[in-house]
């Protein structure tokens, strides 16, 4: 079979910085081709090179052959004609990938209209058909909705409908499910699979997640620093893994840090019957506004030195619960006590209570003031002390050493650090007051697998040395399995299952937990065995 699209010796530099170094691959009609790698490996730039939509300052060389025709030799007008008709692309962020001020039907129809494939009325009819094909039938999801009226998964379906409106031969999906929940991810992946089968298009699936390609791709290529280091059909690549980088990625994605149990019987944080409601932007001018119960009679206990996991999909109330635990928002019912003292939101909460609990968020960059040096950032919690420490610099240096950073890191700014280092700094800031409990809210979700493995090791080590308790909030079941003793499963504001992590993940009792575990992509066990055997 001949290749539908082929890259030959594709190289790319942006403002003189080499990004791609001689990338070559070929994709056949009706085939799913997985491109795997960590951030900065050049996956997305490969996709943008194929579409010839590179950012300013980019210089590409090499050949890109679409059905034998070299795209690099085409002018912009010819490329505009090909984009959307022969090749289409969907990207990672369904929240920002759609025009917020245009209805979804208009956005899908536009693909047909700009290619003069249909008149407006006909284009709308086809658009509704395509929306129905991607699981948004007009009677359930009115086509005159705006993107902000849809969920993340629904928006990604709209983006797919736009991309496939003209039945292109090639669909490039750049991390199409990374921003979605596991159950939504499973649905979107199933949709893409069905489209490839029915429409016979080629799918180039770009992802950082080995388990996703394992279940989807016919062939896989692994990228590192702008090169394809290994390529082959999916099963043989997963069972052999000739290149050390592929192997390292694989090991890191299933990394289990060495932990020894530090949990004691003594309760540290006790939540009883916690309720938290929000006023909804209701439709009435007068009268009580309808209320939304984000946290619904939640009770649990974190013991000293214990690592407790909290899993659930977006919107289930995890973040609301976190804010209540930290005393940032008042609760509408129940009690939260830390070491026997009641947590109340606002000024009533004494500083000595606040300093026993610290938090680390998902985005390490957004949670720091970029104009402060790291030393000042890490020292910030000192304001919770009645008397400042005698030697704050030494305390900061100690906290930085705890997370494996040199003392001179204190004199630098946050932008000088990589994502993994920033997360270490966030952990150092949480540790500097020697708290009893640290809440990690999706703290490793934005990190590459190899960095994530290092941070997990760090967390396991810190817990063993300092006897800390973690509340580990994540949507990633693998991570929860690696780092927690017990786990809570949250759905629609309620805790639906609770128990030892290993037991809950291997023999889930609640149907929701079962759905979650089933939806999480897995590398087939037989392949794992073949690799290690």
């Amino acid at each position, binding site marked *: 079979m001949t290749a539908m699209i082929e890259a030959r010796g594709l190289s790319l530099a942006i403002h003189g910085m080499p990004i791609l170094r001689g990338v070559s691959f070929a994709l056949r009609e009706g085939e799913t081709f997985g491109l795997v790698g960590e951030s900065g490996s050049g996956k997305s730039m490969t996709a943008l090179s194929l*579409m010839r*939509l590179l950012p*300013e300052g980019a210089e590409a060389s090499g050949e890109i052959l679409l059905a034998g025709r070299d795209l690099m030799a085409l002018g*912009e*007008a010819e490329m*505009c*004609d*090909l*984009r*959307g*008709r022969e090749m*289409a*692309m969907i*990207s990672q*962020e369904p929240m*920002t*990938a*759609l*025009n*917020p*001020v*245009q209805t979804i039907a208009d956005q899908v129809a*536009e*693909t047909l209209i*700009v*290619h003069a494939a249909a008149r407006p009325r006909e284009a709308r009819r086809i658009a509704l058909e395509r929306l129905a094909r991607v699981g948004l039938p007009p009677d359930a999801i009115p086509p005159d909705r*705006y993107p*902000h009226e849809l969920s993340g998964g629904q928006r990604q379906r709209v*983006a797919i409908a*736009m*991309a496939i409106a003209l039945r292109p031969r090639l669909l490039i999906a750049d991390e199409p499910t990374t921003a979605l929940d596991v159950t939504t991810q499973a649905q979107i992946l199933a949709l893409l699979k069905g489209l490839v089968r029915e429409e016979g298009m080629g799918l180039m699936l770009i992802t950082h997640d080995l388990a996703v390609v394992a279940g989807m791709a016919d062939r896989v290529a692994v990228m590192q620093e702008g090169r394809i280091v290994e390529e082959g059909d999916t099963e043989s690549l997963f069972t052999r893994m000739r290149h050390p980088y592929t192997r390292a990625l694989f090991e890191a994605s299933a990394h289990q840090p060495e932990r020894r149990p530090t949990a004691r019987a003594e309760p540290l944080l006790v939540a009883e019957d916690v309720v938290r409601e929000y006023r909804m*932007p209701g*439709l009435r*001018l007068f009268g009580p506004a309808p209320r939304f119960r984000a946290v619904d009679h939640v009770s649990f206990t974190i013991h000293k030195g214990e690592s407790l996991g909290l899993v659930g999909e977006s919107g289930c109330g995890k973040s609301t619960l976190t804010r209540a635990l930290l005393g940032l928002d008042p609760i509408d019912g129940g009690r939260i006590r830390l070491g026997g003292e009641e947590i109340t939101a606002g000024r009533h909460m004494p500083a000595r209570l606040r300093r026993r609990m610290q938090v680390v968020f998902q985005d390490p960059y957004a949670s720091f003031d970029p104009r402060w040096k790291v030393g000042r950032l890490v020292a910030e919690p000192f304001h919770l002390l009645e008397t400042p420490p005698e030697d704050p610099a030494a305390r900061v240096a100690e906290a930085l050493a705890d997370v494996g950073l040199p003392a001179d890191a204190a004199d630098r700014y946050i932008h000088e650090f990589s994502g993994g280092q920033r997360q270490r700094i966030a952990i150092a800031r949480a540790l500097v007051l020697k708290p009893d409990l640290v809440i990690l809210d999706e703290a490793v979700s934005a990190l590459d697998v190899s960095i994530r493995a290092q941070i997990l090791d760090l967390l396991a080590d810190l817990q063993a040395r300092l006897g800390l308790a973690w509340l580990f909030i994540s949507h990633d079941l693998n991570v929860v399995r690696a780092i927690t003793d017990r786990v809570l499963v949250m759905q629609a504001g309620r805790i639906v299952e609770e128990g030892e992590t290993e037991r809950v993940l291997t023999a889930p009792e609640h149907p929701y937990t079962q759905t979650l575990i089933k939806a999480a992509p897995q590398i087939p066990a037989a392949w794992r065995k073949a690799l290690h055997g």
Partner: protein
Amino acid sequence: MIRYLARRLLSLALSLIAASIVIFAVIEIIPGDPAAYMLGLNASPEAVAALRDQLGLNGTAFSRYLDWAGGLLQGDFGQSYTYRVPVAELIGERIQVSLPLAAYALVLTVLIAFPVGLIAAARRGRPADWGIMAATQLGIAIPNFWFAMLLVLLFAVKLHWFSAGGFPGWEGGLAAGLKALTLPAIALALPQASILARVMRSSLIDTLHQDYIRTARAKGLTRRQALLRHALRNGLIPVLTIMGLQFSFLLAGAIIIENVFFLPGLGRLIFQAITQRDLIVVEGVVMLLVFAVIVVNFMVDIAYGAADPRLRRRR
């Protein structure tokens, strides 16, 4: 949308009440006797007392406020002390010049700023963009009265296309009236257009970096199509905000231009009223300007709702 409108209307009414209280308080309650202030240092106590009576300054502040605000609602702004005519009548005459002038200048501003901003955004970083940025910088830096005088020298003195100043009144016909307002409107519009074009450019450039522009390009839209179909409407929100501010400014801020062109507008009225200490006129004109600003902001809010469906449902 109805709910959104109702909320905006409520906020409009509350702003007006708050503004009237502040204006009333500033002019009447703050230390000093308005009547004595208006009559100057040499006034006899009898004259002051008579004026106090005429101004309705006897009674509690609250009852005087109610009288004044009640009058405003019926279009009664009081009696001008210097002109000896109802303030409403004075305002009615002057607004026939100021409102058309402001509207004319705003139309010119938009007609200049939109295409210029669009071109600069489409050609960003290229010579056309540099040229536009330099020209708008100059447009902001040149004082508008000086530019007005240049216009008079060229078009009135040298070419005799327009008269150098004055306003014939609308009785002479729409064309004559508009002709008299053309040079002042250009002088007013130029700096505003320079500002608006820059706002438009930077707003569009921000929008062009959004993911949905890349999505549009991946669908096969050309750069120009992506700009006009997707970036323009999204980039319009900050532009609308600035336009609202500019209209208020054009209405009230034309004092110097009205003086250069001898136009009998509100700006000159308030300027004269202040120098003549005619506080009743000042009070009335200020209240009217505040009313205009608040109504314009209300219209801008409505325009937001029309431009961005996400705002319609929010508080």
